[in-house]
């Protein structure tokens, strides 16, 4: 697992629990051209953050989803 994947998973689990990996894998697979989540790089963070915000909003409050997305986006900086 790449360092960035590890960090994103760690942050996401705070919001989504142990199923965070399932959600992240689906986002990278369907929205980042079939990318495997563990191969994620910093350059993918912006795009992933956008899709995580949309997907996670189905399960957690909107503001929390945006907060999570912002944290993922922040890892690229």
């Amino acid at each position: 697992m790449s360092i960035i994947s590890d960090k994103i998973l760690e942050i996401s689990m705070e919001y989504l629990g142990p199923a965070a990996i399932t959600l992240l894998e689906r986002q990278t697979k369907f929205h980042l051209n079939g990318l495997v989540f563990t191969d994620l790089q910093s350059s993918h963070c912006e795009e992933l953050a956008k899709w995580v915000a949309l997907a996670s909003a189905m399960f957690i409050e909107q503001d929390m989803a945006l907060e999570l997305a912002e944290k993922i986006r922040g890892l690229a900086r």
Partner: protein
Amino acid sequence: MTSITNSIMTKLTVGFLILVLLITGLTFLFTVGASTEKIQESTQQELLAIASITASDLNGDEIAKLRPGMEKEILYLVNVEQLATMAQADNEIVKIFTAKKTGTGMEYVIDSGYNIGERDVKIGTEIQNPSRAMVMAYDSSQVEDSFVTRPWGTVFSAYAPIKNATGEVIGIVGVDMDAAVVQDRMDFVGQTIYLVFIIGITCTAIIIAVFSRIMIRDIHILINSADRISHGDTNVVISIDRKDEIGELAVSFKRMITSLKILMHKDYQP
């Protein structure tokens, strides 16, 4: 649903109340006892001061001349007026009198008559069972430790020796305060502390009940949410925003529900 007797709220409230009752009860008992004692002491000092001042103002040589049957003579009336004036200075004083020792006991000499409307005793009226303080007042000022009964009622008294020009003690002056006044003073302190005690207990009970209710209310939210999830309904919203342990529990619980929702969602099925 947990019964009221098994509820944490009931246990917390009762537990805290017992603790508060125990602490305040002991404080109450100690405070009332100490305060009542102090009130009695201050009343004794007040009476002693009046008795001493009155005794020093009286003319011992004149009083020594008074004999039974002289109640209408100027010598007697002048002294009555003087004692009455002293008694009027403090409206809680029932009567000021003088007395002297006889061969077998003690007898009244002057009765100020103030606050009673009439003189209850004449010169030479025997004092039934004079108290130890009365007898000892020939040596120095004394105060009663408890209430005494006189022909004019139950009183709290202090005595001081009356001396003649040569310094010889010719009798005593007694200052009587109505027992009800002393009792009222002591009761007032007790009642005030009792009132504060009741208000304190009531406020504590309300605070504990409200505190317990708030805490239990949030636990109930978690219980209801868990119950709904256990029946397959993951569409639950947990609106608990606290910074304490229950808040942490709620955050963990929300995270667990979120994970369940993700795993149960059709898009995330393998």
